[in-house]
């Protein structure tokens, strides 16, 4: 059985800075890292692999798949250290301008080139963009059933059973493999790979493909194909006051009480 985990490299937003206007985000030079929801998806795949290895005659291959720039190399090593068997990167300059629909097409083409998958796992959204469109679009492109926003997941023979984390209820959904499943951060706690695994990760197989290898043109998935025009992307204008209350703790508390009184937010 093959599980493909689609991974996104995201901005480390804890380090986000703005231009002097205080509203325009400065993304250039912002460090990139493996997304957090992606780690939950990968952890689940590796747990399935470990469970299968204890049963004779069953085997799970975990493929980490990602599309983007050459900077992906670093993040994907972390995925390999966490337990993926191999990595496939689709690296192409045109992918810088790809939107959710373009990225989904690239991932679908890569999965087809791999010969398909029994289970495709993704995060339900990415930490930075959080459009949350890739799982649903990918499932449509591959004509597979999908179970999204999943916080617990079981495999039972050829059946997938998952609990969807909806607003007021858990919805238990079943479908046959293959399928696309998107997961939430409540699914599990991703492992921190030990040093030995990190050292071994560099020796695991890693294939790098470009759009041509997938039979896709830059214009069909990159910027020219974008379905969305971003008119502006700014921090909300209403800035916070950022008043720090100084002094000993008693003075701080008095100052806070006075501020809350002034703001009219006390009962």
């Amino acid at each position: 059985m093959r599980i493909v985990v689609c991974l996104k490299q995201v901005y480390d937003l804890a380090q986000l800075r703005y231009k002097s206007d205080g509203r325009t985000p400065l993304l250039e030079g912002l460090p990139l890292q493996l997304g957090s929801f992606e780690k939950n998806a990968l952890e689940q795949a590796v747990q399935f692999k470990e469970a299968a290895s204890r049963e004779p005659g069953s085997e799970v291959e975990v493929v980490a798949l990602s599309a983007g720039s050459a900077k992906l190399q670093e993040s994907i090593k972390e995925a390999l250290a966490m337990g993926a068997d191999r990595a496939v990167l689709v690296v192409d300059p045109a992918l810088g301008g790809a939107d959710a629909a373009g990225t989904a097409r690239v991932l679908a083409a890569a999965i087809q080139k791999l010969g398909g998958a029994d289970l495709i796992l993704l995060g339900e959204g990415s930490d930075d963009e959080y459009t949350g469109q890739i799982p649903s679009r990918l499932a449509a492109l591959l004509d597979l059933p999908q179970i999204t926003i999943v916080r617990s997941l079981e495999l039972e023979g050829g059946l997938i059973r998952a609990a969807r984390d909806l607003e007021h209820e858990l919805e238990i959904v079943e479908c046959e493999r293959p399928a696309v499943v998107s997961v939430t951060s409540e699914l599990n706690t991703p492992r921190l790979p030990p040093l030995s695994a990190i050292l071994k990760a560099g020796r695991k197989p890693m294939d790098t493909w470009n759009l041509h290898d997938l039979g896709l043109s830059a214009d069909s998935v990159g910027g020219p194909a974008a379905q969305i025009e971003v008119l502006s992307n700014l921090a909300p204008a209403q800035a916070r006051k950022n008043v720090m209350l100084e002094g000993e703790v008693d003075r701080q508390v008095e100052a806070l009480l006075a501020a809350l009184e002034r703001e009219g937010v006390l009962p």
Partner: protein
Amino acid sequence: MLVWSERDILAHELLLFAGAHRGLLGPTYAAVFGEQATARAEAYRSWEAARTYVSEAVEPTDEALAHALAGLAEHLQVKLVLLGATRRGRATAPRLAQILGAGCVSEAVELAVEDGQLITSRFTLGGNTLSRERILTARKVIAAVPGAAALGPEDTPGGVAEAAVGAPRTAASNHAERAAGELLPLPFQPPVARARVVRREPKPRAGADLAGSERLVCIGRGLERAEDLPLIQELAEALGAELACTRPLSYEYGWLPEERMLGISGLRPSPRLMLSLGVSGQVQHTVGIMGSKLIVAVNREASAPIFKLADYGIVGDLYQVAPRLTARLRERSKG
């Protein structure tokens, strides 16, 4: 245009928006699926929908919903499908968009018509920025959160207040000339559902109403032990606030129920006051507090990112600040 939401109140809000912009968006249709669909659809007759398509046989999975809506969009030749951005709606929208070859905004927090164009806004970069976007494709799919499509007073007087409480309007109230909408069955067989809902488990609810609370006290990892919770509960009580928490305290430690969890996978309320104690301010959490009118942060680390979001900040130990603040609030309410 075509409107669908599993929540009728949200569908009503979207239909009011559609009705107000009929000139741009064309005739308004609605879909009602699932349990009690036939009974629920009655109300839609007076909610701006010229025709409402009803089926109880559509499985409430993303794929089946997307195919049912795509079939209707094709049948009616509509250019825009507007969904309510519940979690189910958010996941259904991109599949529908992919089938229709449409561009999609899956969690619009604002929906507006400017210069004859439909403009959406959504939070991005972990909730730090608001992205104003225009969908370029001829067909469009948008999932909008409650309130995103709320009409301004100039659009349809009275419509918004009624939408907020979900009271069905009579057809006579604003559009006396318009006849009540038709209810029709799906004009095709319901899509085959490859995924099936086998069971539902209601989430445990302790009755906390964080969404409607004016004041929230949010506690983070700065709290060292579950045994110290009363310290924070007493402060919340003295402040007339509900208790909220970050993800580690509910999901990882189990100290508080998840219905009190704020953040990307929890609640995103809009209280007048958010008092944040021992919260560092990871983006996954701050998405949940951005809507607060006033944010106060107490944290031992002066470099904690939460202070950038705070109106008032105290660099200090919550174990010292909380009891003093509780005592002073109690004195105040007595005096």
